[in-house]
């Protein structure tokens, strides 16, 4: 009975999160086109439904019924495997993201946390590990296509992901030092108490009269933002699929549902890194004021609402940057990653460690 309740609750939570993420992916495909066009004096999709709001459905139907082409000379097994390797890690990371307060419900003798699928104690490591596996999808897809553009895109993706994943990992170490935990739920809980206690400002870590000293993680935040933009292959770091140089990079030979898988993986990755950013740096489900306005069940909704606002704000930043900046050159990308971002992230670790040592 306990096993049944536990499994049932997990399945329900997974279903809710999956449906939410897939719906958000659909919304994002439209939102990106609309926001980009608004920033460029255009209108965006206007044909399907009023103001084009049904465009994601039309796109989905189109991709679903498109011919599924495997190029001759391609490695069929890896060619089919690559989209799946891309998509699954992008979705699997949502298992450890806290969407709301850390409450526990007793149901038939089983303790259930309704706002997180599983609160494992190495949550952030788990996310990073699966994000690296997702890069294999890109590299294998580029190699298996038997196409020079795909291969070049895959190679670029490999180099870029290795360079920038390092920076992501180092940028979040400052937050981990402050929180003393790898669990995303604990990291979010430690930032309670309003805007000043979020890790991006970082007050409240000193003892006694030194409570106001900010151990700010704003440099780590900037490094994190730039690195995740590079890691999710978004402009201005979209060298793996540079349209003007490599046709479509590693996606050149993909069509139909396999292309849709890559597409969904890209957007799911964007949502995932936005969730992680809001949990690590922007206080997760905490409001910028101390405590909550509503009480009881309303407080939970308030938390989820603030989390949603932060995630969508971060996603808007992705589109905003894409509308503004042109693509970097490959050597600029590498130099920026290794000579600027990496020393900054390392310096941030050192400074944070010293600050925390002195304050505690």
């Amino acid at each position: 009975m306990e096993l049944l309740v536990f499994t049932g609750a997990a399945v329900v939570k997974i279903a809710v999160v999956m449906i939410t993420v897939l719906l958000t992916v659909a919304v994002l495909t439209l939102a990106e086109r609309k926001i980009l066009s608004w920033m460029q004096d255009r209108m965006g999709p206007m044909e399907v439904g009023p103001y084009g709001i049904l465009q994601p459905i039309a796109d989905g139907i189109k991709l679903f019924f498109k011919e599924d082409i495997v190029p001759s000379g391609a490695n069929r097994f890896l060619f089919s495997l690559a989209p799946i390797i891309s998509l699954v890690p992008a979705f699997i990371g949502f298992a450890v993201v806290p969407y709301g307060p850390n409450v526990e419900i007793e149901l038939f003798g089983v303790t259930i946390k309704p706002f997180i699928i599983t609160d494992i104690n190495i949550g952030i490591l788990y996310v990073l590990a699966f994000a690296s596996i997702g890069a294999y999808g890109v590299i294998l897809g580029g190699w298996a296509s038997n196409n020079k553009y795909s291969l070049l895109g895959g190679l670029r993706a490999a180099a870029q992901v290795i360079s920038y994943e390092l920076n992501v990992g180092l940028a979040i170490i400052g937050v981990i030092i402050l929180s003393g935990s790898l669990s995303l739920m604990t990291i979010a809980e430690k930032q309670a108490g309003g805007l000043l206690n979020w890790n991006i400002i970082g007050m409240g870590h000193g003892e006694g009269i030194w409570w106001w000293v900010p151990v700010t993680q704003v440099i780590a935040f900037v490094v994190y933002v730039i690195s995740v933009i590079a890691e999710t292959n978004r402009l201005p770091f979209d060298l793996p699929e540079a349209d003007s140089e490599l046709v479509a990079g590693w996606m050149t030979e993909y069509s139909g549902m396999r292309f849709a898988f890559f597409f969904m993986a890209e957007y799911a990755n964007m949502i995932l890194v936005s969730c992680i950013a809001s949990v690590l740096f922007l206080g997760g489900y905490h409001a910028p004021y101390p405590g909550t306005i509503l009480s009881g069940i309303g407080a939970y909704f308030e938390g989820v609402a603030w989390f949603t606002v932060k995630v969508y704000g971060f996603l808007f930043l992705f589109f905003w940057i894409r509308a503004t900046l042109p693509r970097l050159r490959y050597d600029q990308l590498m130099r920026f990653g290794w000579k600027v971002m990496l020393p900054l992230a390392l310096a941030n670790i050192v400074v944070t460690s010293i600050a925390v040592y002195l304050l505690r």
Partner: protein
Amino acid sequence: MTVTDLVKTCTFYEILVGMKATMTVFIQRIILRTRPPVTFQYPHEKRDLPGGYRGMIALLKYDDGTEKCVGCDLCEAACPSRVITVVSAEVEGEPMKRYAKTYSMDMTRCLFCGLCVDACPVDALAMTKEFAWAKYNKRDLLLDKPQLLALGDRNFPEREKKLEFQHPNVATFNIGHKTLPAKVS
């Protein structure tokens, strides 16, 4: 590198200026609604074409319904792409009067230069403002005389008046109506 430059580099100043520009447009476009889009929703709203627009070519008629074309072949001679094929013939029983027995245009080759219209001595050819002529079958673009006349009827409802002193039996291809002397009454 001065200190100002260093500070600007470290704070991504130039990038922030660029992001301010895009955000300004966004706010003007969506929140303040002071900035109209440049997009033209083509099939729903159509642009006003200029007067000299060179679209599909049409054959014209006089106001009494007779064809203007006198079968002189000058358009065929003027055409750089060999679009036009004219077979000229005499009107039965009227040896001075000629007409185009067949008049066909291969619009797949036409480059819409308008030289045939310039060449025509009787202004029988005109360029309409029609341009949406995509076809599934290439043969639908081989136009014959009735189709060209229908194009002219469709686009030029006001026909030119046939001059009174123009004898119906006289081929007038070397005197365009613009160069005719004013009618003395």
